[in-house]
């Protein structure tokens, strides 16, 4: 997703770099200035304030906040749950994309729309929606409130579309000839999938998974009603930040916030690099 903005594909930009790009005129210069001021006021200065607040007490207090037993437990739970959800999504998302592309049955288009619903729903509504079926008044007798399974389920819900939507287009573009060739040479369908199809899907799966992981790490809204926020048990990082803010501990909140920012950025960059390497190897 970042790629389309950062480095648009095609030679258009690089060849036109010198000739097609306009120099700033007075009008566009003023426009750029105004845009930069607004962007700084809205995004850059506030984010800098978070880093500043985290760094204000020095490295020692930053480290102490994060290694505090309760905070550390929250961070560990967040990472573990996000990793579990990412693995589940990598497998299930690929299967869903496969069925949506390769299978043909009545109602498939409806499923295609259903995939997008978790993205479109407000996060708090997503939490509420899950609680109607898996909450205290569950018609099926499952209550996930204040359990780790509940957190897992909520994260699974909000990250559902990532892998599906990155794998789907790749699967659509896949050249059928290679598969036919493999089949005609006597490869079983499982072998064809493992040796021919899966390798070309790996970059897409990795990209979708990285986006899903970053989202799971930072998820807040859908967990508010589901996670009971019990320290050491069901407290995740974003809810820990909220608790710090409500307890007027800005430095603590900022320390965890900086870590969340860092983890999200590192994950996206790292998995993007892996995806590129796989893509280059072909």
């Amino acid at each position, binding site marked *: 997703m970042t790629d*389309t903005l950062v480095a648009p594909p095609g030679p258009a930009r690089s060849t036109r770099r010198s000739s097609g790009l*306009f120099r700033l005129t007075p009008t566009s210069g003023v426009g*750029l200035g105004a845009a930069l001021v607004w962007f700084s006021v809205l995004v850059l*200065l*506030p984010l800098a304030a978070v880093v500043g607040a985290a760094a204000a007490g020095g490295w020692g207090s930053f480290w102490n906040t994060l290694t505090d037993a309760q905070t550390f437990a929250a961070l560990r739970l967040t990472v573990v749950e996000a990793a579990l959800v990412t693995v589940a999504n990598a497998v299930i998302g690929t299967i869903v994309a496969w069925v949506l592309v390769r299978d043909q049955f009545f109602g498939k288009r409806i499923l295609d729309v259903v995939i997008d619903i978790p993205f479109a729903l*407000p996060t708090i509504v997503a939490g509420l929606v899950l609680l109607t079926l898996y909450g205290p008044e569950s018609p099926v007798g499952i209550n996930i409130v204040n359990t780790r399974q509940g957190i897992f389920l909520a994260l699974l*819900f909000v990250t559902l579309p990532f892998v599906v939507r990155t794998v789907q287009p790749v699967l659509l573009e896949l050249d059928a000839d290679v598969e036919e060739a493999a089949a005609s040479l006597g490869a079983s369908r499982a072998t064809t999938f493992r040796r021919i199809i899966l390798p070309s899907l790996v970059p897409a799966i990795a990209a979708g998974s990285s986006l899903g992981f970053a989202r799971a790490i*930072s998820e*807040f809204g859908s967990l508010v009603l589901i996670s009971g926020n019990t320290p050491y048990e069901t407290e995740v990082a974003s809810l820990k*930040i909220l608790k710090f803010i409500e307890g007027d501990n800005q430095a603590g909140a900022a320390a965890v916030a900086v870590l969340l920012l860092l983890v999200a950025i590192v994950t996206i960059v790292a998995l993007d690099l892996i995806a590129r390497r796989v893509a280059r190897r072909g």
Partner: protein
Amino acid sequence: MADTRQIRSRKGPVTYLLRTFVIAYLAVLVVWPLYEVTARTFAPLERGAASGIGPFLERLQDPSVTYAFGLTATCAFWAVVINTVFGVGISLLLVRYQFPGRRILSVLVDLPMSVSPVVVGLALVLAYSSGKGWFGGALEAAGVFIIGSTPGMIMATAFVSLPLVIREVVPVLEEIGTDAELAASSLGADGWQIFRRITLPSIKWAVVYGVVLSLARSLGEFGAVKIVSPGAAFRGETATLLIQNRYSNYEEPTAYAAAFVLVLASVLALVVVSLIRKEDRS
């Protein structure tokens, strides 16, 4: 196409197994919970009480609920207006003009989407709250209060939906190139004329698409708004905050009614988006 169809038509037990799995998974994770929310929205409050549309509308007409939806509409409206003007402007600058730091800016504008909503709220508090913010003191002296009032909530909403218009407009601008614009310019059109007659018509659908996505995102924003808003009834309680407050306060019917409205809005956004995609392609 014929080749893929041939592959698709080979249906073994695995095909049916996967199909059943995907349908069951999506049903249990998304469809059934959505059905439960709808059922509870229109269910009678107690045995023998009226059910259906009437009580649902009645709950929505409660003054605190209409206030919440009004506030949500205000925040979403201003956030979308700001993001559209800023988004189209900065997209033009990023794609058409040459200036130092262009690449860095194009990376940074995508950042707000990957930041956790809680961190967004915290960032705005640490920058602008009158007690603890970097600029809080100066703003307070000038009589401006951002945190805990509507401007802060508009900023939080604008922050989280900032890249949506840009993401849609940038690729289109790159694709259409500058030929028509240069031609118009050589025929004596001024900058505004070129924008209105040449550029705007070609990015029209991308802008509309971005606006719908921003609107959907803004209507449902929860985490960032929760941090910067006082969050009490008639005092900064948006629709999403109302859902949390009412649910936690054992007033589930009102929470379900408000949630159902937001579910409808997001499904509507999905439908509009898919219609625009079709329109754009033709």
